[in-house]
């Protein structure tokens, strides 16, 4: 009954989204207030209806209603409750449902909070959100119905996959989807602005918070997924340049570029056509990711490959959304007047440089991900190549190096016309730090790859350069501390957010460098009593015990981690076998020191009293996640800035009694 109710809500949502897509748009063209006003109730009811449908599916999972096909295929009565719930979005149908709920949430948010937008722009944005809703609701209703019934219902479900019963994996999709779908706002604003024929500084101000919110969540989602791979995979890999990973990384790169170019639109009223294009491309890449993952063109997904309906449907959505918006761009964008002028050496110049390199990086990932497909299509299946980590490392890293170098200098530049010698003088400390770290890293690891100390130096350059800018802003050490404190309080949160985010990049780069270049690995057969030296640590292999967990059997090794004579900690790596699912998982034991991870995995017995063991010292790895956390924190801090709150600028302007105290923090 509940499932039918969900099905009904979903179908109704499709109808409502049609109204939302059409009526406000007509209203905007006729400048008809009442027609435009239908946007709000439509967006609200779409949110409620999709929310109800999602609730109905969640109920099916919680209550283990195996007469619902999605539940039967992806849940099991013995699963812990947490994973029953995460099972809702741990499958194709449910994840698409979550997609449209988030989409509706954003659509509602702009209807609710966008009261300061010009009414026609707001109506058009709501309408474009509605169109995306129509497409994906139709996709769900016609090809991926999550409420399909099974008759007779099976006694129990099939979804006992032990790999999916993991918090890291359970919670990264929602983050990722908020990111992907959040970029739909930038897209809707871009399409609406093209229809309006007007892009100005205000547009830049409106589109930024939405993009920033999406970016912040996407950063968190990517990092969480990478972390999961790191601890679950069993050998410390954290990034594989897999098509599915690239599908989430491309929107991130484009979104990062968009964040920065929107600043130029807001502050200097220029780079408009480019920013609009980026807004369209960022969401298009999110859609492309959805297509790649679910159509089976790149990743071999056996069941889908035999049923191309879903793939063709998403391709049709892509054709309308991406093709349509790019065609609109081609027709309307040339008319956009570009505003302010600037020199190459200026803040804008730095941001343009950032944009070029990010776009280039994104283009490289795009090319590497899709080129095999092109070649296969062009050669009619005769020529298949693989593009893997060696290609991406060879092309991506050289693009990142200049980007990061300029990243430290950019925020120090003045708008319009920068003073390079002045900026270089202020970066003296950063330069010294870079050289010092480079030398230090080289002395620590003289045998490692030469690029690693260079990359560590660049990370230090960025970190110190970023902090210099922040310190200069509050005149740290150059004015009395109380004065600095007053300035810090007056500093816009968006500025501190930028500092944090850039700092996070520096930390993450240091982490990635260390992890890629200086890993120490020992793979061998160990017997109880053996001590295995790994880097400056020793892993003492004490014993192996076997036992049973709640729904698995385990083989657990007891390993003592030593450094010299000092016992650091005890590690208990496990191999788990799940008899019902017929699968094994490895549970690595990880001890983190903050600057390195000590990582232990136990494998098979060799039959002569020994076990295969894998011990690793992974230097700097934790910094990858610290860096991502700092980046996300920077995003949230910036979002909390009063100026970023939708509507804040206008409201402040409408209040003539605003005190100066209110104006000052907002510059």
């Amino acid at each position, binding site marked *: 009954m509940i499932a039918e109710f969900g099905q009904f809500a979903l179908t109704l949502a499709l109808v409502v989204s049609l109204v939302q897509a059409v009526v406000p748009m007509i209203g905007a063209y006729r400048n008809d207030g009442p027609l435009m006003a239908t946007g709000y109730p439509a967006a609200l009811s779409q949110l409620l209806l999709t929310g109800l449908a999602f609730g109905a599916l969640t109920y099916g999972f919680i209550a283990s209603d195996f007469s619902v096909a999605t539940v039967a295929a992806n849940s099991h009565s013995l699963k812990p409750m947490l994973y029953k719930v995460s099972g809702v979005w741990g499958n194709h149908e449910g994840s698409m449902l979550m997609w449209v709920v988030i989409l509706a949430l954003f659509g509602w948010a702009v209807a609710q909070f966008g009261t300061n937008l010009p009414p026609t722009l707001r109506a058009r944005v709501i309408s474009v959100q509605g169109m995306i809703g129509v497409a994906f609701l139709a996709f769900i209703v016609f090809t991926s119905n999550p409420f399909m019934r099974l008759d007779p219902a099976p006694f129990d479900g099939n979804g006992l996959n032990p790999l999916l019963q993991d918090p890291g994996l359970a919670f990264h999709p929602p983050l990722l989807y908020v990111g992907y779908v959040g970029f739909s706002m930038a897209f809707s604003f871009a399409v609406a602005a093209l229809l309006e024929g007007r892009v100005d500084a205000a547009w830049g101000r409106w589109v930024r918070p939405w993009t920033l919110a999406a970016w912040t969540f996407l950063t968190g989602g990517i990092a969480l997924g990478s972390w999961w791979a790191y601890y679950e*995979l069993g050998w410390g890999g954290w990034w594989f340049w897999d098509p*599915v990973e690239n599908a989430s990384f491309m929107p991130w790169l484009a979104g990062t570029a968009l964040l920065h170019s929107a600043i130029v639109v807001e502050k200097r009223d220029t780079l408009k056509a480019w920013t609009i294009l980026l807004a369209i491309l960022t969401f298009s890449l999110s859609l492309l990711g959805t297509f790649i993952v679910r159509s089976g063109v790149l990743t071999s997904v056996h069941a889908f490959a035999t049923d191309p309906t879903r793939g063709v449907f998403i391709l049709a959505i892509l054709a309308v959304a991406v093709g349509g918006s790019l065609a609109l761009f081609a027709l309307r964008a040339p008319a956009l007047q570009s505003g302010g002028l600037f020199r190459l050496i200026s803040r804008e110049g730095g941001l343009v440089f950032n944009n*070029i390199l990010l776009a280039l990086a994104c283009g490289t990932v795009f090319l590497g991900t899709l080129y095999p497909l092109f070649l296969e299509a062009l050669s009619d299946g005769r020529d298949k190549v693989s593009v893997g*980590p060696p290609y991406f490392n060879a092309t991506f890293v050289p693009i990142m190096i200049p980007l990061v170098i300029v990243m430290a200098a950019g925020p120090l530049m003045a708008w319009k016309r920068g003073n390079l010698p002045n900026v270089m003088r202020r970066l003296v400390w950063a330069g010294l730090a870079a050289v010092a770290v480079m030398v230090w890293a080289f002395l620590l690891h003289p045998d490692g790859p030469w690029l690693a100390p260079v990359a560590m130096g660049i990370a230090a350059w960025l970190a110190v350069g970023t902090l210099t800018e922040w310190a200069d802003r509050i005149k740290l050490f150059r004015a009395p501390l109380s004065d600095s404190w007053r300035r810090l309080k007056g500093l816009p949160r968006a500025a501190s957010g930028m500092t944090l985010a850039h700092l996070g990049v520096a930390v993450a780069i240091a982490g990635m460098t260390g992890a890629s270049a200086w890993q120490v690995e020992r793979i061998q057969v160990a017997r109880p009593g053996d001590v295995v030296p790994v880097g400056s640590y020793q892993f003492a292999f004490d014993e192996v015990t076997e036992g049973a967990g709640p729904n698995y059997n385990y083989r657990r090794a007891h390993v003592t981690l030593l450094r010299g004579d000092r016992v650091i900690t005890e590690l208990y790596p496990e191999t788990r076998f799940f008899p019902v699912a017929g699968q094994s998982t490895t549970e690595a034991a990880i001890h983190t020191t903050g600057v390195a991870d000590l990582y232990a995995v136990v494998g098979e017995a060799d039959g002569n009293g020994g076990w295969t063991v*894998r011990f690793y010292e992974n230097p700097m790895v934790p910094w990858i996640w610290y860096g991502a956390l700092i980046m996300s924190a920077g995003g949230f801090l910036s979002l909390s800035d009063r100026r970023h709150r939708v509507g804040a600028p206008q409201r402040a302007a409408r209040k003539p009694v605003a005190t100066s105290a209110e104006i000052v923090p907002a510059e």
Partner: protein
Amino acid sequence: MRRLAVLLLLLWLPAWPAGAVEPDEVLADPALEDRAREISKELRCVVCQNQSIDDSNAEIARDMRLLVRERLVEGDTDDQVVDFMVARYGEYVRFSPTIRFETLPLWFGPPALVLVVVLAIVMVYRAQQNRSAHEGVRPLSAAERARLDALVEKLGGGEKPRSQGDPP
């Protein structure tokens, strides 16, 4: 994240490797073993989803790893080992495609794009300069500059142009 595929599709689910290389494969000579590992990272496991033979615990990946080591012990160069594999499994096993006519866009696309962008910037920049010459934009005079700085300072100095007035 590769595991995202698992999550989203739940359709292909091999048991995950706890690392692939087994102790009995490892060569006694550490230099040779290091070369073997590097070569293994360049070779794709032909039955896996985007995994190198170094990462995969598929049987064929193990066969290929053993063969890589066998060739190295027999004195092959790194390139010879890779060519040996390519002769049997095709270009597909290279994770880094060779540069040939069909892969020119892959390798030279990004640098070509840089050139195009640089050219575009130069063009736009020239156009801008022409425009600014027409509109007669001139730099601020010292007096205007001082007035502007004073104004900006009064407003809290958030984004003021620091380049000229500010002491370093």
